[in-house]
């Protein structure tokens, strides 16, 4: 595990330590700074999005020591000592997570802005409930608003990922498969 420090030398703020996507980090920042802003501005993890800043949309969802949280509502000091996972930490060893694979195949992402939060909510659901039925999927992502898909394909993607996860089939992510649109 690598530790990186983004604290300025004469920074008056307390140091906050946590592990993000497997990497130990220390930041010295105002303790009330939102975890969302720390991820995006101080750690350059811009995959986590802000859609509302008031806990309503779920675009900023990350996992914080095993719970799903809206990072816009967590002051960074309350994440001291936590283990954090963001969308950037979902794919493992160059492989898309089964959820990412299912979203790709089944149209679970359109404009993509809700997608990082949606994936985190779905991943959290599957950890707690490996074989969710439709009602459980609906509840699991009810805090993640998607204005593009009407959710139907997201339900399907999550359901498909459960079967994929049990079958352990995720395709390898190579640069060829990563289509850069522009």
């Amino acid at each position, binding site marked *: 595990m690598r530790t990186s420090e983004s604290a300025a030398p004469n920074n008056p703020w307390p140091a906050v330590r946590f592990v993000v996507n497997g990497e130990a980090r220390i930041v010295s*920042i*105002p*303790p*009330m*700074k*939102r975890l969302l*802003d720390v991820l995006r501005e101080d750690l350059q993890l811009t995959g986590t999005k*802000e859609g509302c*800043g*008031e*806990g*309503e949309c*779920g675009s900023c*969802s990350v996992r914080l020591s095993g*719970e*799903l*949280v*809206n990072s*816009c*509502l*967590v*002051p960074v*000091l*309350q994440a*001291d000592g936590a283990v954090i996972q963001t969308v950037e930490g979902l794919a493992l060893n160059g492989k898309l997570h089964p959820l990412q694979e299912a979203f790709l195949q089944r149209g679970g992402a359109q404009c993509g802005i809700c997608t990082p939060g949606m994936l985190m*909510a779905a991943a*959290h*659901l599957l950890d707690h409930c490996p074989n969710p039925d439709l009602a459980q999927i*609906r*509840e*699991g992502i*009810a*805090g*993640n608003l998607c204005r593009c898909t009407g959710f139907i394909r997201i339900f399907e993607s999550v359901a498909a990922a459960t079967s994929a996860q049990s079958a352990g089939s995720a395709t390898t992510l190579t640069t060829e498969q990563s289509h850069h649109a522009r």
Partner: protein
Amino acid sequence: MRGNAAIHDLVAPGTLGAVLDLLAAEPGAWTPIAGGTEVMVAFAAGRLTAPKLVSLWGIPDLRAIEVAPQSVVIGAATTFLDLRRHALIAADLPLLAKAAGWIGSIANQGRATLGGNLVNGSPAADSSPALLAYDAEIEFISVRGRRRVPYSEFHTAYKRNCLAPDELLYAIHLPRRFARHNQYLRKVGTRRAMAIAKVALGAIALLENGRIREIRLGAASLAPYPMRLMQTEAALLGRSLTDDTIQSARRALLAEVKPIDDIRSTADYRRRVAANLLDEFLLQLRRVEAVP
């Protein structure tokens, strides 16, 4: 985002004693923040005025559910997800478990605390109707000691309560004696999830020989703060569930509630739906009674 983190201080002393000392040293200077789901919303909207905040997150004494033979004691910083995951709450206090599942979404329920919901004191708070129906007691703590008040006396005005500046809400006490009661809780929100209650009614009642021996009705969004419907209860207590009783209870409710027009709904609608919810509960009660 309209808040500026640099102008607020936040500390996390880590123990209950340390927090209480802080509050005692400068009463009113420190604002507690538990799950932050109210405080951080105010912060983002640029509405947070508190310069100094003290975190209650991660203090074990505040996040515990203790089960005794006669009662359940819930630490103020217990999250709604904790409540939902607790088998005994689901079994003994189903209305509370149900309400816990209504708070926002999973992400909110993992942070939002029962104590924060009560101290915030929204008239629409989802936990309130259940706690009123269950006759909850609230326990406060400070360096001066502890004290308890009935939850029905906790709220004093819109977003006001009887906490002293150096006190924390410590725990919520709930009796375990409702196995034979008929229970009801319904929230009428803006949508099925992530909804603020336009009206909600929680109720428990015990029938004996066809008469109502015990009844408590707790309502949300019908007054400046969550309210026990005392007059309506009085119209029902000791009565049998005839059409006349139901009709007069309905009248009592309509006379007692004081809903408002706001951007979420109208007073008129709230009143009528509240009365309909009462009907629904009383008809449910009557049906149960009819079953031998």
